[in-house]
């Protein structure tokens, strides 16, 4: 109680009692948990111990940084991975297929934080090409609109790359496998037999059918990206959710920690549900009825 500045032992006791009541420590743990759940159901995750502000507000404040990064990473990843997988499958076992396949396989074994540290050293420190701390430079508020856009784009470059290269490696392999599987089916042989050019067979007939499993990947990827990669956000000092929860853990900010676990596990559930629904929506042969 030394830090409270209250000298009188009786007042100290009263204060301790007050704090205990405030944090519901006078109730049994199951009751505490039940009250926490009831609060969560009302959309209240409690107040942060650090500054007394509502946890929900802090999460909403950090959402844009993480969501924009996740959206950018997913879009970029898929728009590279799908064409790459198609090209690999179209020229199966060619020099290009093997070369790019091996390259991305090896790249996939590079942990994102290792890539981040090495890139920060080369691109950020040694060549001084790109910024690597945070999302904006100092004096962002005073910049013109174009200046702001440029500043954001520069800050996004390195972290987006580190976020994305792994999923490009996985998705292109996945895409290649799917397409090759579809290409073995009867309706592709029919399409070829009726004399369609190979490009049309691939893009019109095979590609659409092979895109369905990618939807699942998309829905499963979403939660992982939204709840943020803790290490990457810490390395890049990114003002996102991952770093918010990490700081919450470091400062033993229990309401924030509980919210972090709750948010990321619910997102996994939502992701799995979305994957199942997307599957049924895209492929009429599947139904959960």
């Amino acid at each position, binding site marked *: 109680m030394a830090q409270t500045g209250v000298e009188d032992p009786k007042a100290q006791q009263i204060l301790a009692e007050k704090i205990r009541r405030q944090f519901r420590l006078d109730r049994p743990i199951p009751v505490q948990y039940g009250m926490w759940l009831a609060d969560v159901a009302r959309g209240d995750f409690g107040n942060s111990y650090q500054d007394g502000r509502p946890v929900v507000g802090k999460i909403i404040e950090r959402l844009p940084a993480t969501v924009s990064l996740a959206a950018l990473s997913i879009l970029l990843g898929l728009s590279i991975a799908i064409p790459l997988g198609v090209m690999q499958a179209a020229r199966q076992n060619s020099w290009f297929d093997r070369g790019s396949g091996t390259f991305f*396989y*090896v790249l*996939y*074994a*590079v*942990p994102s*934080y*290792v890539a981040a*540290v*090495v890139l*920060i*050293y080369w691109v950020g*420190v*040694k060549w001084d090409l790109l910024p690597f701390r945070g999302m904006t430079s100092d004096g962002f508020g005073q910049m013109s609109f174009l200046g702001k856009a440029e500043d954001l784009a520069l800050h996004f470059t390195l972290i987006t790359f580190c976020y994305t290269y792994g999923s490009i490696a996985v998705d292109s392999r996945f895409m290649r496998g799917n397409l090759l599987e579809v290409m073995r089916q009867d309706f592709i042989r029919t399409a070829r037999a009726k004399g369609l050019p190979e490009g049309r067979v691939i893009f019109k007939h095979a590609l659409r059918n092979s895109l369905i499993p990618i939807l699942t990947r998309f829905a499963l990827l979403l939660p992982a990206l939204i*709840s943020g990669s*803790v*290490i990457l956000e*810490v*390395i890049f000092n990114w003002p996102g959710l991952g770093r918010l*929860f*990490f700081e919450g*853990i*470091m400062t*033993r900010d229990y309401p924030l*920690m509980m919210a*972090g*676990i709750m948010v*990321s*596990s*619910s997102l*996994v*559930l939502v992701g799995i549900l979305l994957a199942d629904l997307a599957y049924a929506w895209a492929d009429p042969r599947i139904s959960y009825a």
Partner: protein
Amino acid sequence: MPRGEPADLDARNPEMLVASEGESKGYWRSVWRHFRKHRSGMVGLVLFTILSIIALGGHLLAGGLPIACRYKGTVSFPAVVATFHKIPGAKYVKDMPKPFRFPQFNAKREVPKDPEGWAVWPLVPWDPNEVDPENRLKGGSDTHLLGTDEVGRDILSRMIHATAIAMLVGFISMGIATAIGLVLGATAGYLGGWNDIGISRLIEVFICVPVFYVILIVLLLWEPGIYKVMIVMGLFGWTGIARYTRGEFLKLKNLEYTMAARALGATTPRVIFRHLLPNSLAPVLVVVAFGVAGAIFVESGLSWLGFGVMPPTPTWGNILRAGFDNLRVAPHLIFPPSIAIFVAVLTFNLIGDALRDVTDPRLTGSA
């Protein structure tokens, strides 16, 4: 090897006994035969051997103690004993020879003083925690091949000793996960019914747990330590193994040899452990191999954040962090751990992929 029951069945017919024994051995032999032809898998296996040698070498490769030496008339092998001491409890079997067991005894200074003494030193004559105060954050040189960190410790020596930590974390955490996953997966798959429903729901609950946060929180609430990292990773990393085991058991439990074993009156545990488990292990090993890669990845990340393995124990993650904190002064620190983490993850990915290829009957046309 599941050879008990079917062999008993044909005990009166020696010819069939040989046949049934040969068949069950053949499964693992055929896995190995296909694996040997798998080029990237063999690359992974070679890398794995190199990593294991480095990890097991320990003080023989890098350390402040001589491998063999003659000091004051006695010949001793301090580095060999130090390497042996890495096994828990080994101290009570064979203690360190006399002067070398005292921390104040500096072998490097004392042994050359003895006129009749001689010593064979390890390749890297630096202990991972030995401080060389004149060389701090220096790049590679003849004395320190890969340079030194912020307190003047030899990076090559720390890298070598960190290899053992990384491999240990990978294997022990996946060992725990495999034990849990196999038992739960086997129970769910073989018994079915309510067991299956209960365990499947449990798996789904555990899939939703954000493991990384949980590890961070556990390490914060308890005192951090290397074994806690392994235990937590094991306790939360078994879902994949359980799912694969369950799938394998669902497939295997309706095969003839299972029915034969049950018809002969084998108890449920016997059927599960003697007959089904050995035959479902290979596909599960695929998940385990990727799991080891993942565990090494997570542990290095945790050490990078300053969690988990406590200083001064060397890990790839905390060497990388030391480099990141001194990026402008000592960038030489980031490359050795980066390459090591990459190679370790690549190794287990290669082995995992190769195992998947050779245990997939569609691809090998047998098994």
